[in-house]
């Protein structure tokens, strides 16, 4: 049954997923009837206004929230099983590094919890720190680094163990435009180098279009998917691609989708 439903390469599969929070003011439908299939190696962006459930959906995939309806599978398992199998790394809105640990110590944190050997820990820390271009900063403390460097360190932390899924919840939302552009470029390089499947929540249209192979447009009350756009852009993307007609056309379609979602308010 499951095999027929899943496309062969589907990594994340949502069928009729709904999530309702019971609050003092009555139930809040954070997600309703979400159907989505994310293939291996995809870069999927979730975009929409606040309250559209994009973060809730990402948290449900990470088993930080639990759907009240429908089925959600990650690598063919339930999200909870996938979490126990350490299937993904998660990057939060803020870097959330532990201030009492050095940068290297922070990257080591998941490795310690998952019981890697000391030598292995050391090797991996060096590898991922150079992947996010933070070589030589391992002995610094988080508060000695700029916001952009802290966020890179938190990405390194999510990459340190071999999860093939990377879930990112507005990771660059708190950074300024210039730093954000740089990190977007680096993230694409990283994605090309590692071949990971990435789920990326954002509220910036250019960011979503620039990064993704698929863009999931969402709208609020109840949180639902209104459009899924497959990007025709090549995988290799210099920053200048944002001035091309193709790019502008996709951005336009995303904006239309967001506006349509607002019409029935």
């Amino acid at each position, binding site marked *: 049954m499951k095999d027929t439903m899943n496309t062969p390469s589907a990594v994340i599969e949502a069928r009729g997923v709904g999530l309702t929070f019971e609050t003092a003011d009555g139930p809040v439908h954070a997600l309703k009837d979400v159907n989505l299939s994310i293939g291996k190696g995809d870069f999927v962006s979730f975009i929409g206004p606040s309250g559209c459930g994009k973060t809730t959906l990402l*948290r449900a995939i*990470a*088993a*930080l929230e639990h759907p009240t309806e429908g089925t959600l599978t990650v690598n063919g398992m339930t999200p909870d099983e996938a*979490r*126990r199998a*350490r299937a*993904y*790394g*998660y990057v*939060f*809105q*803020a870097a*959330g590094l*532990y*201030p*009492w640990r050095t940068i290297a110590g922070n990257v080591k*944190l*998941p490795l*310690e*919890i*998952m019981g890697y050997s000391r030598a292995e820990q050391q090797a991996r820390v060096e590898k991922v720190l150079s992947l996010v271009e933070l070589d030589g900063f391992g002995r610094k*403390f988080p*508060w000695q680094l700029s916001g952009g460097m802290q966020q890179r360190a938190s990405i390194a932390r999510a990459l340190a163990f071999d999860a093939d899924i990377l879930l990112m919840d507005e990771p660059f939302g708190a950074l300024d435009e210039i730093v954000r552009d740089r990190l977007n470029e680096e993230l694409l390089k990283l994605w090309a180098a590692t071949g990971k499947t990435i789920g990326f929540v954002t509220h910036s249209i250019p960011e979503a279009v620039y990064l993704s192979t698929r863009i999931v447009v969402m709208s609020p009350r109840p949180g639902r998917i209104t459009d899924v756009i497959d990007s025709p852009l090549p995988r290799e993307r210099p920053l200048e691609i944002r001035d091309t007609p193709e790019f502008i056309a996709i951005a336009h379609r995303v904006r239309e989708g967001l506006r349509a979602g607002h019409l029935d308010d």
Partner: protein
Amino acid sequence: MSAAPRPHWARPVGVGLAALAALAAVAALVSPGMRGTLAAILTDPRSAALAAIWVGIWLANAWLAARPPPSALVRALVTLLFGATLLLLWELAVRLYSVPAVLLPAPSAIAARFAASLDILWIDFVQTILKGALSGYLIGCSAAFLIAVLIDRSPFLQRGLLPVGNFIAALPIVGIAPILVMWFGFDWQSKAAVVVVMVFFPMLVNSVEGLKATEPMQRDLMATYSAGYWQTLVKLRIPAAMPFVFNGLKIATTLALIGAIVAEFFGSPTRGMGFRISTEVGRLGLDMVWAEIAVAALAGSAFYGLVAFIEKRVTFWHPSQRGR
């Protein structure tokens, strides 16, 4: 800081004189019998000399403080100068007015007594501070921390124990000393018991607060790693709790000394700081009493300083420590 229109010494002198006047007024208000004495003191030429010294040093301090920016050295100098002034005025007042030593010994007499009684002071220090206060402090604080970790797993106990603990922490717990002296005898064990009870609740309340002090995002992060209870406790909750824990440890240092000394008033062997203070007061040996007070002050500051030093090493990452 822009230049003030008034001369720079006007305000400090004003503040200094106002403080003196206020003190005198209160003394006169509180005790009618003191009015005559006060009038006599105020009209005495010797008082003018003391007041002149006070104003002089205050001016010197104001001058030092007004030169921007005051370096750490200048700051320390001003502080020490002020402390030294108080000592000097004390010494001069005792000599000029020939205050009897049974009332208020001069600082020089206290220092002489201190130097001459080092052996007794050391015995008392060991009995009260090392045996009574320190052992009680260690037992009480570690017990409170362990129990905080235990009740942290139960929201019911947290919600029940925290208000009760806060309530008990505000009570005059030192009053339990006579009971504990009855239970544990006159020696240091009963003093340690008083200290345990006194430090327990402030430490418990602070530790429980601290263990709750993690951010939701940090807890979510541990959840994405499928970290277990112990891993989360050791790697996240306990480090995050440290600033609160040290706050409790610092409050407890002073409480520990108070408990150990006061408990000796209810019965002790023939040594210990509280014992010495109460017996020397009875024999009017006030210089010895003041020497013990000096020991208590030094021990208290050193104890607190030690805990603050360790805190600085452990919680170097906390914003309140980074600024300095």
